[in-house]
């Protein structure tokens, strides 16, 4: 799939894709809360209909999965992206003794997920499933008959995960496509979403998530709690006491940045790139690097090099590096058809 039109749709109208990367699990039974609470590294303040964005960590406090937890009456639903295929189930098996565990159902056997992203995703969705969805707050979900509509998204635009029985996903997609004409609905894929996530400093479990960094280095402390026991809390505590040596920092560059390139401050090694991609919006490369604490600040001129003698200048910046149009779209007041009336600032910061 051509990346640029997909990203264009995500950034300016709405794009649709099957969210095959999502692992969907349901925890039910009397031990549901206790089980989920033991697994999740954050205090769960969840009422029915609410979601929290957190992680699953292994015993070394390294991320195993990027996780949304949703509370549905007494049940809990995980919508997760795993570090490698099978990681979550294997994690559950090794950390949950069967006797003291909730019933866990893999919803992928019965359900499919379609993702919508874009500043007018809410409007297309409202046109297809009903206007009540339009005001759905971030990190909440609504149940409309057999359809679960989760509001999340990792691009910095309005984002929704639509979970429907497998027998109905085809029809749902058809209805979205049919209604999508007036919205310039585009098709996207995981690669397009990952580029948008990079531009918006949304954690990617498959890239920086594989860099052997803990939430402390990855600037993900908001997703965890230091006052709770969970899988990995001991290792995290030790790392916190020792202090981190690197922090995830955003960079831009006119020249290509490679996914594992070293980063230099003058002649000295400052760190290593963990995620990189070309930003069509900015016309330059955007990257994330784990830099030593002296250099983990925006506004510094560094360099990165794959080969000695050919350093390429890079600059550390404050993410997000895009002025997302979604910030300026109000579902109560705007519409795609009259978007020319909205005064968007320039897309590039």
């Amino acid at each position, binding site marked *: 799939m051509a990346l640029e039109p997909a990203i264009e749709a995500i950034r300016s109208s709405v794009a649709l894709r099957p969210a095959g990367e999502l692992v969907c699990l349901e925890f039910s039974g009397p031990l549901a809360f206790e089980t989920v609470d033991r697994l999740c590294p954050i205090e769960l*303040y969840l*009422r029915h209909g609410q979601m929290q964005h957190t992680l699953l960590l292994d015993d070394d406090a390294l991320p195993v999965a990027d996780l949304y937890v949703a509370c549905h*009456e*007494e049940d809990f639903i995980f919508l997760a992206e795993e570090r490698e295929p099978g990681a979550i189930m294997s994690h559950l098996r090794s950390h949950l003794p069967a006797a003291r565990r909730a019933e866990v159902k893999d919803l992928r056997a019965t359900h499919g997920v379609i993702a919508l992203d874009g500043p007018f995703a809410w409007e297309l969705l409202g046109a297809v499933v009903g*206007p*009540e969805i339009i005001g759905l*707050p971030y990190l909440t979900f609504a149940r409309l008959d057999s359809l679960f509509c989760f509001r999340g998204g990792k691009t910095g635009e309005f984002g929704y995960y639509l979970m429907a029985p497998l027998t109905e996903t085809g029809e749902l997609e058809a209805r979205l496509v049919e209604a999508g004409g007036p919205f310039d609905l585009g098709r996207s894929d995981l690669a397009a979403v990952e580029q948008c996530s990079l531009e918006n400093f949304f954690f990617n479990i498959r890239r920086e998530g594989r860099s052997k960094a803990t939430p402390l280095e990855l600037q993900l402390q908001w997703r965890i709690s230091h006052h709770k026991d969970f899988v990995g809390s001991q290792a995290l505590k030790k790392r916190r006491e020792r202090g981190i040596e690197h922090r995830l920092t955003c960079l831009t560059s006119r020249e290509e940045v490679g996914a594992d390139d070293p980063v230099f401050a003058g002649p000295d090694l400052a760190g290593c790139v963990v995620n990189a991609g070309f930003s069509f919006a900015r016309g330059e490369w955007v990257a994330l690097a784990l830099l030593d604490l002296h250099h983990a600040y925006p506004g510094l001129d560094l360099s990165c090099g794959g080969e000695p003698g050919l350093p390429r200048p890079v600059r550390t910046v404050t993410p997000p590096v895009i002025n997302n149009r979604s910030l300026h779209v109000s579902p*109560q*007041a705007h519409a795609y058809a009259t978007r020319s009336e909205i005064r968007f600032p320039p897309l590039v910061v």
Partner: protein
Amino acid sequence: MSSRNAEVVVTGAGAVSAIGIGCGPLLSSLDEGRDGIRPITRFSTHPFSVNLGATVPDDWLRGLSPQYSSDSDLCFDFARIALTEALWQAGLEGDGRDQFKTALVVGTSLGDLKNQHHRLASRLAGHFGFKGPAITISTACSSSNNAIGLARDLLDGFADVVVAGGADVLSLEAFAGFHALGVLSPAKCAPFSRPAGTTLGEGAGFLVLERAADAACRGAPPLAAVSGYGLSADAFHETSPDPSGGGVARAIQMAILDAGLAPGEIGYVNAHGSGTANNDAVEWLALQRVFGAGAGGIPVSSSKGHLGHCQGAAGVLEALCVLLLMPRQSVPPTLHHRGVRPRCPEDPVASDRPRPHPYRHAACLNSGFGGANAALILSTSSSPRPVRAARPVEIMGLGAVAGHGLNLSELGKAIEDPEFDQPMPAYEIDRVIPNVDPRGLDPATRHLIAAAALALGDAGIAVRGPLKERAGLVIGTTRLSSQSAGEFYRSIAERGPGSCSPLAFARITLNAPAGSCSKALMLKGPTSTLTSGPGSGLGAVLYAATMIANWESVDLVLAAGVDEADSSAGGLTEGAGCIALAPAGKFPVPPGRERAVLAGFGIAGPEDLSAALGQAFAMAGILPDSVDLIFGSADDKSVLEHFFGRPSQKLPRLSCRKLCRGDEAATSALDFIAAALVIRSGESRAALVVGGGRPCATYAAILTGWRS
């Protein structure tokens, strides 16, 4: 238990507003398309980006009333003038009637800004010689709608005439707060149109309500009928409405059901229509939910273009706009409509003149901070109501946080210990109710949530599934949280009114704790917050009981009294007591416990304990002899002695005053809890709880065991 069978009519109305003092001038302004929005002169608007407000011009007032010097006098004056007109129109001024049967219900958002919300009502009652109960409803912008609804309830056996309405002032504090929240429009409020935003207003309105039969008896022509009302909680956010429109829809549906009507019979809707993008869109969604495809055919207008947003007085003044035009079969328009804003009503009656329109029933809606929604059904005439028997009210669960700690068994011991003298011990809210986000909860809210969670736990009831929308919350309290009020006033002192704290402003309505509690516990049914000074907790319990008795769409109501200590003002009273009430037999009861019901209750004037007792015993259908124990306190013990026909020292009298270190709102709720404990342990067959007294209202409740 009395039932909601009486037809209720309006026999008098009075108004003070930015478009006229008096119903006549108000109607002329409606007819001539005049709005009351003008540059504010009462205080400097220099720090703000907006200078418009719908103020009552000073020279109008000076013509009518003595020199006023402060907002508190202004609030009282508005109310006094409106009330005077209402009584005069009803033909009741200087009447020789039994003033003990005349009640007053005042809706106000910020009241006199002295943090004594109940004093406005007690002052008014004193001024007019009303000797019945004087109750204040404070649910921010839905206060007076709710007040009119409560007036309906009081006419069912507690009063013969109820004067109901509201008053609020466009104070600097209110203006600063609304401004900080970013909801004020730079232009005149244009509901459903552009620009989005509201304009703050002020004023007062009162309706005289009587049973239709009584009005006919004394030859008082009815202006309209109040056919029903409904309440609901968004349980969503302090200042933003539930975006699905579900909350507002529930209130409307409840009101229509209460009136015994079908949605198709509503011919006109007077919306809250504040003009903010959020509110208007949500209201339209709600109307579509309630009226379905027919929603587009119903004229929906907002009177805030004329009146501004009158806060606690909005409900009654907007209802008045309907009442004045309904006899002529026309509806008020929406002013300043300069073009359609998406997601707003299809027919907003965009015009500057009233539109002729045939209709029998109108729905009047208001929504307030804290997610409190109220809907009223006004009809051209009253109609006979299907007889509905009141449902007996069972006491399902009890929860209390006070000097005794959190444990009910400790409460029983403490109340009997004459030496007891302990302040409330510290507790962790997470221990009481896991997974509630403690961010930004002030102590009053924490105590309330803790007591409510304990009550639900004690009842063994989990609020989930469909129960969420059928479970309500009523709070009685006397003061704002001093922590939140302090934060707000400090922000003004430190940063100036142009930079006051919006977070703190959202918490200085009396119903803020109720809003947070309903969100934490998912209580989306009817909600209200009242105050009547001391005894407010018991007042809340009795209001909750009328909801259970009369509303089929309600399965559970939590009723609580809450106090937060405020050492700076010398107020050490602290505690919360919560009681879970349900229709008798609806829920199972944990084993080893006798079922306990609220067999009867009374609501009477501040110096009318004997009437409260009489009502309670009549409703319970038992003799005073049956009572084993009396809980609570009474201003005048001799009344009790007289009532029981013997020195009442013979009957043990116990009070929870020591547990709360005072007697404001929570104590009377704890007294009720203590009484319920002895009934369900089987220790006592019947217990009486008395509370309140001066300056507002006296309450009496009789608890007995229940055999189904």
